[in-house]
């Protein structure tokens, strides 16, 4: 199931000018046959600057805010598949069994029960995690939003869930009602500070903490996004109804793990909300 012939890129997030980073991103979007609006580019420069200030930018392994815009449906999809940061994984996200109907600028990627995205990304650091921005989420039952291309436990902590983000099998994860009404949407993140210290949060607020977790095995396997089971097999794409504003994988601690609501994650959430607004996209 691992992709064949997919070239990888080691594009480290630039520590310098946000403008240069966004110009580089735009060039890769155009090279993939995509487009991005002037408003989104301007907002992206602000976003990169904000993420640098917060301290997340240089810890990003892969970040795609799905930003194809101002073109045809095909061009917008092609643009949305190009990550702003792709230090790990394939040069572009690979859409499997989907198409232009799975992308809407106002929402992001829209799952229909058949498609998913393949990133070919391998987690670079066990002390890391993922963020998943849901523009419109819904209760999913036992489904996982980011899975592995083969059996493995090393990346199971990436799943935002109600009851378990580190179950022995990814299939037990779900996005549920924690956070009250509307708790499905927003910026979900899951990370581990140490081998046995796992945290899951939403919009800067702690949802789940486990300081006696199973360490699991490292490394994991190629990461998928929007898969719903342990192995991310193509027959188990996430069910219809979920709308994804974007995702990111990161390495390294970005918060103190003690203060909740956490100012770092609150700031990241706010920066993403501002950016997505440039695309007419709401991130609760």
């Amino acid at each position: 199931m691992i992709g064949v012939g997919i070239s990888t890129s080691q594009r480290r997030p630039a520590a310098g000018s946000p403008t240069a980073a966004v110009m580089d991103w735009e060039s890769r979007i155009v090279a993939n046959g995509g487009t991005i609006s002037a408003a989104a580019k301007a907002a992206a420069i602000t976003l990169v600057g904000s993420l640098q200030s917060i301290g997340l930018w240089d810890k990003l392994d892969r970040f795609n805010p799905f930003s194809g815009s101002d073109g045809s449906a095909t061009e917008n999809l092609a643009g949305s598949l190009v990550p702003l940061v792709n230090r790990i994984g394939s040069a572009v996200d690979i859409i499997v069994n989907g198409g232009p109907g799975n992308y809407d600028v106002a929402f992001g990627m829209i799952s229909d029960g058949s498609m998913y995205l393949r990133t070919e990304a391998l987690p670079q650091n066990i002390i890391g995690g993922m963020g998943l921005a849901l523009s419109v989420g819904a209760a999913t039952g036992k489904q996982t939003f980011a899975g592995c291309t083969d059996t493995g436990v090393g990346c199971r902590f990436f799943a935002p869930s109600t009851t378990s983000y580190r179950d022995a099998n990814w299939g037990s994860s779900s996005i549920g009602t924690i956070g009250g009404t509307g708790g499905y949407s927003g910026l979900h993140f899951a990370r581990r500070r140490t081998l046995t210290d796992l945290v899951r949060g939403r919009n800067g607020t702690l949802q789940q903490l486990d300081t006696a977790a199973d360490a699991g095995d490292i490394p994991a396997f190629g990461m998928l996004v929007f898969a719903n089971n342990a192995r991310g097999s193509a027959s188990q794409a996430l069910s219809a109804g979920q709308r994804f504003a974007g995702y990111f994988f990161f390495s390294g601690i970005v918060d103190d793990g003690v203060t909740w609501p956490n100012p770092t994650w609150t700031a990241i959430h706010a920066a993403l909300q501002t950016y997505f607004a440039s695309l007419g996209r709401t991130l609760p």
Partner: protein
Amino acid sequence: MNALIVTPAQAAEIDAINATFRDRRLEPVEAVDGRKVLPASLLTDCAPGGWWFAYAALLNAMERATVELPEDET
């Protein structure tokens, strides 16, 4: 699921076309009855210039059927 039934020979042809793209891929999945399938909705993007145009001849030649996919592995 409204599906396209994929034969082993067609699966091999799909793999060959997949290798020519870096941002898209078709991966037939196994239905409950054991047949390999793809979503029939892909046919809506098979016109010239469409996302799956390169696969159009293959997809249009596939048998169509309603199939059941397996439940989540929990």
